[in-house]
């Protein structure tokens, strides 16, 4: 950021990562140190604009003196810490975490997934063929399950939720990173329309009593979509293009502009395919929006396209 720091000067701490010394600000994490050194560290549940929940465990590293691996995204760097990121132990846990996720969750629209799976030579198929979707998943009782026979690998697959005009929720793709809950709740939007319900493998993102979004507290800001790392939450326009096999990012352009609605002047990033807006975002590193918008900025773009009536209304 370009503005001057007006806070009290922050102390630096020095730690060692993979044999190299690095200095980070006090309060920064091991992940910050890794990034400063250019050490590629996979992350899935980590969000730049949210407090780390360290739930996915794909960023784990070895810290000298620690019995177990530690999540680099949330563990604060300490003076003299000795960290190793490339050991067999680290690679093993990262590979297993990716295999466990990929065998239970549909990662087909998670942008980061293919590279991670390849890098760690993950083989999710070794747990067996995926089990079919479970339409009753939303009603699972904590502490109970049907005993599996092991012939298929249990998945979180469930029917896609299409209950409004603006976005869809496909929890078959949900890795339970908590980001949408945090963005909807006290960290961004303060709407609290969704929370994690259920327990264990049956834990899922849910509205109260599984009501449809229009009956929930949702205000359609779409800030959950902005932080979703796997495409489980998706613009309806994108979902429909994908369903039709017409989604093609190579044909898309991204244009930054300013939201026309109110005086805040949020930056909008318009994703355009074939002269139509298919998705709207805001840069996550934007000082004001932190990637957030309101329903108007996120979804109120139809008027831009209205002068171009659908050539084929059928």
């Amino acid at each position, binding site marked *: 950021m370009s503005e001057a720091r007006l806070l009290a000067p922050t102390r630096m701490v020095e730690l060692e990562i993979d044999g190299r010394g690095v200095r980070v600000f006090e309060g920064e994490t091991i992940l910050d140190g890794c990034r400063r050194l250019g050490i590629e560290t996979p992350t899935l549940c980590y969000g730049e604009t949210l407090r780390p929940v360290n739930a996915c465990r794909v960023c784990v590293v070895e810290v000298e003196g620690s019995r177990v691996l530690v999540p680099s995204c949330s563990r604060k760097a300490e003076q003299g810490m000795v960290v190793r990121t490339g050991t067999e132990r680290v690679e093993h846990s990262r590979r297993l975490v990716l295999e466990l996720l990929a065998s239970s969750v549909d990662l087909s629209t998670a942008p980061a997934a293919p590279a991670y799976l390849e890098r760690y030579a993950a083989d999710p198929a070794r747990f067996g063929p995926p089990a079919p979707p479970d339409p009753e998943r939303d009603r699972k009782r904590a502490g109970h399950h049907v005993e599996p026979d092991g012939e298929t690998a249990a998945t979180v697959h469930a029917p896609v939720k299409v209950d409004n005009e603006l976005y869809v929720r496909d929890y078959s793709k949900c890795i339970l990173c908590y980001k949408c809950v945090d963005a909807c709740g006290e960290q961004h939007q303060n709407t609290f329309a*969704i929370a994690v319900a259920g327990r264990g493998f049956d834990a899922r993102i849910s509205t109260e009593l599984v009501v449809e979004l229009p009956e929930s507290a949702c205000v359609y800001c779409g800030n959950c979509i902005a932080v979703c790392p796997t495409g489980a939450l998706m613009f309806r326009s994108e979902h429909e293009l994908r369903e039709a096999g017409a989604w093609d990012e190579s044909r898309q352009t991204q244009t930054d502009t300013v939201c026309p609605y109110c005086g805040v002047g949020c930056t909008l990033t318009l994703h355009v395919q074939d002269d139509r807006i298919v998705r709207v975002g805001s840069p996550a590193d934007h000082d004001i929006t932190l990637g957030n918008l309101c329903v108007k900025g996120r979804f109120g773009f139809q008027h831009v396209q209205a002068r171009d009536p659908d050539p084929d209304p059928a």
Partner: protein
Amino acid sequence: MDLKPIAAAPTGAERAAVDALLGPPESGWVGGPRDVAVDGRSAHGGHAARGRRHLLLPALHAVQERVGWISPGALSYVCQRLTVPPADAYGVATFYALLSVEPRPPRVLHVCEDIACRCRGADELIAALEERVGPEGTVAPDGAATWLRSPCLGQCDRAPAALVADAGEGHGETVQAPASLDGLLGALAGGPLAPEPADPLPQQGEPGLRLLRRVGVVDPTSLDDYRAHGGYEALRRAIALGPEGVLREVVDAKVVGRGGAAFPMGRKWEAVARQPARPHYLVCNADESEPGTFKDRALIEGDPFALLEAMTICALATGCERGVVYLRGEYPRAHAVLGAAIEEARARGLLGEDVLGSGLAFDVEIRKGAGAYICGEETAIFESIEGYRGEPRSKPPFPVVEGLFGRPTVVNNVETLVNALEIVRLGGPAYAAIGTEGSTGPKLFCLSGHVARPGVYEVEFGTTLRELLELAGGVPDGRALQAVLLGGAAGGFVRPDELDLRLTFEDARAAGATLGSGVVMAFDDTVDLPRLLLRIAAFFRNESCGQCVPCRVGTVRQQEALARLVRGRPRGGVEAELALVAELGRCMRDASICGLGQTASSAIESAIGRLGVFAAANGGAG
């Protein structure tokens, strides 16, 4: 916060149940009747309402106990009263196995299907229920009762066990142990319940006992009887010693925690005592849900004032103003006994603003769990008390720095705390002379499974496993011992040729075992060990909170691999399956957030590695 309420209204009974806990609503803004003349057009006091968030679980309990389930209207009312978003409260309600957001009959039988009860006929009992009544969840013909499978109910010394939860005006829970088919069928038909029999106390009244000295000897409802047996002498001595003096004795005693993690108690107490942030909290972990563990129940039911006295000594030493006993929801007798003891102690000035005229202000309340093993984890317990889902926190910060409500907190297991009485009574060095160099003091073990006299046994550290099993009468019916599960589902198996293992932390560690929570469960040669392992795997799958990937998915994959092995359909051969189980175990151990995931494979791996379970099948396949 602008909440959108659930479009459903509570019934009168639901409203009354919540109001009995929270008091009547202060205005139309928080669930009372709307009256613009009184309430005005703007809401105030939201912070105060949200400040009572920690009452969410008690409020949900109140509804569940009154009507048997949490209806949309009741959930809506609880949310309005506490200003909790409905989605958030729904997430909490669906986290706990004893709560239901689906309609349930007023009587629910929770029938234990866990490993200790399986040694005493739980499988047959459940099979008979399935045949006579229908699968779990089947509602009895008159619509008034149903039955559900349950994890360990902590009644392993009277197995097989069931817990009957009755909702309504005169709600309450009753333990049926040992449970009989006729008794359960009668209960399902709405019949009266057999009174809960007394706990078998195999060492009752024996000389030389320290922790169990008064259990089964004193009247647990009588403070006078407690005092007549030496009660509150330790607190008087602690007051004379002062906080620093007590801390010194506890450190000198070299005592470590008895809940499973074996952390030095003195270091924990000192760390909290030295924290400048106030207030300090004391959380007594009485959520023992580790299959095969029931020692804390025996202590509370038999000698509740001892726990209160020990907690008061801890409060004195560490500067805690409030204590919370987080008691597992399946312990109705312990809840009643301890609740009465707290009232009595308060009335007699042993809890409250000025304990024994010493100037110490300390009070205790009970928080009831709702069916979640994970809430015994030392940070999940805070989340649960604060009214959130019982998901463990990331450490650091540790509880001694940021614990309950973000304040420095001592969290100790019941047995650990009760040791404080003996430490203060004897003095630290004398206490440290009990047991061995590395494991000081007396220790409680929970003997269950195939032993002649199951129950809680107190021995000094250093006793061998063989001596302990002999104390409990050994394997009955002339059968041969097949294996012993030491430390619980999160512990490990030992072989019959390893019974000379001295029961100390250091010997267990050297032998690659753990004492865990003090479980000693014996299995004779009739037990189908592979199926037992499958149950342990199912337990961890059920009890994982679901927060982190290694545990959430790993416990499922572990169970699936074991299912294939048990069914004789290993994918790619037994070797490959065992390698897969080992890999899963390693990842869960290395990368899970908390101790549940980190130990979810330990019993299973020890059975494979130490007992050679599946090795025979391997030979056949090879």
